[in-house]
């Protein structure tokens, strides 16, 4: 067991990083818009498809392969710029103030449309482009070969947590978002353009989802069905951390990552249920999640 401690910890962190990217956008959108976006998983996989397509284009034209790193971020920006305003203005804004059931039905409808759209455009075969992973090479840690890209993902997840905290606490946009989250009507009455904040916050959520998909592409395949799986896992993480809690999402990702990895190492038959087992335990002890509360709303 002693020779598996380091791989176990590293795998937990790497797994948590991927899970965090899948969940953080969902929790951010909920914190600001109070909308549970069921189509979040589709935006994650669209980010992956776009990133893989651009990276494949770079490879086919024999351009500088390091451009593929830029392509990962650019594809997330591209998806956010197209889908963020379109979905928020076209669909989501009609659900503000409506019951959760209406919000879920509408975004679920969108999820089904986006899933079929991906199948029509990208086909049913697995999509994969691993240039960024190959460029960074591997490192042997504790006798196990790891991809340096996996370590980069852990660093990226940390950067996103810090970046979001800085954005919320130390920028004007962050203060405006905080004001809208705290009291939407009051924010409106003092002249804050809440519609603009909603578009920006939703697009930021889409960016984070698409970034997650894009960053996952070099080490994971993108195939039909990924959106649904991502969505379920993102919900579990959001529930553990407390809906709308960014730090909660980070901690919950760590818990889920560790639970999954422990299951794979020690009890492989529990692999699939481990994240939901962790969710069950947390919700039994803290029904509103680790960072959630009944009344307070924080981001």
């Amino acid at each position, binding site marked *: 067991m002693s020779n598996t401690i380091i791989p176990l910890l590293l795998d937990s962190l790497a797994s948590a990083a991927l899970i965090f990217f899948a969940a953080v956008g969902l929790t951010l959108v909920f914190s600001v818009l109070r909308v549970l976006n069921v189509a979040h998983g589709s935006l994650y996989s669209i980010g992956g498809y776009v990133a893989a397509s651009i990276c494949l284009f770079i490879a086919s034209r024999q351009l500088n392969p390091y451009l593929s790193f830029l392509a990962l971020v650019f594809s997330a920006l591209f998806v956010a710029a197209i889908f963020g305003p379109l979905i928020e203005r076209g669909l989501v804004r009609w659900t503000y103030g409506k019951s959760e059931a209406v919000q879920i039905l509408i975004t679920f409808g969108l999820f089904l449309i986006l899933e079929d759209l991906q199948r029509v455009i990208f086909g049913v075969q697995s999509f994969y482009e*691993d240039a960024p992973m190959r460029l960074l090479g591997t490192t042997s840690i504790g006798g196990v070969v790891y991809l340096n890209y996996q370590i980069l993902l852990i660093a990226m997840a940390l950067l996103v947590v810090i970046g979001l905290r800085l954005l919320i606490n130390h920028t004007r946009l962050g203060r405006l978002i905080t004001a809208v989250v705290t009291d939407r009507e009051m924010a409106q009455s003092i002249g804050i353009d809440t519609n603009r904040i909603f578009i920006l916050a939703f697009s930021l959520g889409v960016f984070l989802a698409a970034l997650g998909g894009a960053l996952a592409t070099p080490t994971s395949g993108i195939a039909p069905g990924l959106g649904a799986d991502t969505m379920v896992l993102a919900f579990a993480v959001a529930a553990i951390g407390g809906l709308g809690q960014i730090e909660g999402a980070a901690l919950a990702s760590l818990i889920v990552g560790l639970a999954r990895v422990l299951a794979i190492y020690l009890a492989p038959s529990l*692999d699939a249920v481990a994240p939901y087992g962790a969710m069950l335990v947390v919700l039994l002890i803290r029904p509103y999640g680790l960072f959630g509360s009944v009344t307070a709303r924080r981001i």
Partner: protein
Amino acid sequence: MTSRGISIGVARCLSSLEWLFGLNRGVPQGKVRWVVDGLAGALALGVIAATPAAAQEKPSALGLGIFTFTSGPAAAYGVPGKNAADLMIDEINAKGGIRGVPVSATYVDEAQGAQGVIAEYRRLTGDAKNQVVIAALSSANCLALAPLAEQLEVPTVGWNCDTHQLLMDGKSKYVFRPNGNTVPEFIAYAIYLLDRKPDVKTVAIINPDYAFGHDAAKIFTAALKALKPDVEIVAELYPKLGSPNYQTEISRLATARPDVVFSNLWGADLENFVRQAAPRGIFTSSQVILALGETVLQRVPLPDGVIVGVLGDGWWMSPDAKAKPETVRFAEAYKARFGEYPVFPSIKMANTLIYVKAAYEAAIQKNGGKWPTRAELAAAMKGSQVETLTGTAQTRADNDGLVDQIVGVTTKTPAQQFPVIGDMVRYKGDSLMPQAGQDPLAWIATLKPEFAKSLPKPGSYK
């Protein structure tokens, strides 16, 4: 004709009631469900029994219900099957159909799950135009449809259906599998491995987390233990079907340091596993066996020396296949139409259509030139021996198929841009199968090292 229409309508209404009240969602409904199922079945039987003459009239078109995955991660395996069906049906129709009757297919996506598949099966077979069903890819769906096929008396041919449990009771009249099953398919890998690497001590397994993955692990392990009892299984991993990321599983395999890694992952899962495991050294630190490896040869850069096979004899480049002009023609037509050469799921589907066509021709001949009923068609399949694109499909008395098993290792060839299978062996279909009615695992436990010695060796199939 009117009464037949009414009967079909009532049967469909009852099926709808079943759906409406959730009786088919696994909720125990006791007698109510039994009554509804019974009535629906009785009406369907009535429909068939009431129209024997109509069933024997030569139809203007022959409909085939074909069940495969056209969406979801399993589509990577299911769509090549569908492509092959499209191509083979076009070829059959170009040659005048079956005795002048053109063939058409209605595809059902298996990704909707067993309840949806059952509903579609009922709908399709309620139409007399669809006299035979080709179903299915998923073992779970095959097991779900088999009792219905018997109840409705519809010839149902498993084009994939790997599970050995499908025909174990030996009582099936309408369900056929012109393929091998999990027993010969995975014993073949154990024998090939021990021939190639007789000093193997430790094995790790990574299979998908459902019946196919667990059955394969059980059979492969049982065969290894019977033939080399000191082999130790050091890790058994069952990731969820459709999992995109195997990094943690790969770390676990690396820490177990096995001599051999065995996997029957398939479709997009297999592609993902190969792409993620290769840079992390799994293919150099262990002898890897990818039971469905042939399906990814054209898509991922597999290194040399990986043990792969085709779960049967369905490799379009095997010496037997290459010797058949129709197979070469089929492979080239497939490549021209779909951009890739056929993979073994494509060949399995094409062979199944050849099997169905041969059954029709045999039944028509036996029937004095008259178009056969469903029962006559099923009778023609029983005990049949059909020349396929890649060998022979023999149907036993229990309706299970005997096909040869080809296993080899990946190797490069100047003739192709992708790896091919070399150092091959071709085990006879009946040599790796228990007798009809015999418990497969009990039979495997009786195998001795001498059994493996009597079989052909790697490299013998050229």
